[in-house]
């Protein structure tokens, strides 16, 4: 699965995207965020406060409890500040 990071999540993780193999048992967006956080380092720093992290699954906004299903792309980012 392709994982994208934007804004300060991108800066903290230290990269804009990465390919990951989703482990068995990781079924929701929140599960995946927790698993990424557990990697430590920049990932831990990026996800230190999961409440402020938003996500999109295949380019659609989703809630933390959304199932990953067979999505090919997930993005993590802070609340949007465009407009």
């Amino acid at each position, binding site marked *: 699965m392709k994982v994208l990071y934007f804004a300060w999540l991108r800066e*903290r993780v230290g990269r804009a995207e990465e390919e990951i193999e989703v482990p068995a048992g990781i079924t929701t967006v929140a599960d995946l965020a927790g698993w990424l956080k557990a990697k430590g380092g920049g990932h831990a720093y990026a996800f230190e406060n999961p409440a402020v992290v938003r996500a*999109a699954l295949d380019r659609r906004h*989703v809630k933390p409890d959304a199932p990953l299903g067979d999505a090919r792309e997930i993005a993590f980012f802070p609340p949007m500040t465009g407009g």
Partner: protein
Amino acid sequence: MSDGLPASETFSVRVQAEPFDAAAEAAALTEGRTDIGAIVTFTGLCRADVKDGVPLAALHLEHYPGMAEEEMRRILDEARARWPLQGARVVHRFGRIVPGEVIVLVVTASPHRGAAFSAAEFLMDWLKTNAPFWKKEERPGRTDDGAWVEAKDADDTAAERWGKALG
């Protein structure tokens, strides 16, 4: 998408790095038509504000390519479902934007002014909270995380006025 001349589609969204002419965008939407009664144009500009005595040099707009256009299209479709629009255009820039330059443009056209106003305000409120763009401030001597603009609660409140969330 960015040859300088606004395309003439009736409903369109666009993401681009280049500056654009807000007036030309509005004009393109209504050119040669005699059925439109009201046009509302919103232009959002980069302001030269000062924080802790340090002036803003520029904003850097990061976006999620692909999703930005898709989400803007979804927001526009939602506006069309709610109000009788005859045309609408949303243009959002990314990249480095200096004070005085345009960041975002929304234009709505309708037979009636109430619909044109409401749709334009709805589009802006939802763009603020749902379109995947992030602003980072460039100020002399500051490059830490704090330079990312924080989302305002006021924006969520503004978006919530319109009822059910889009995403």
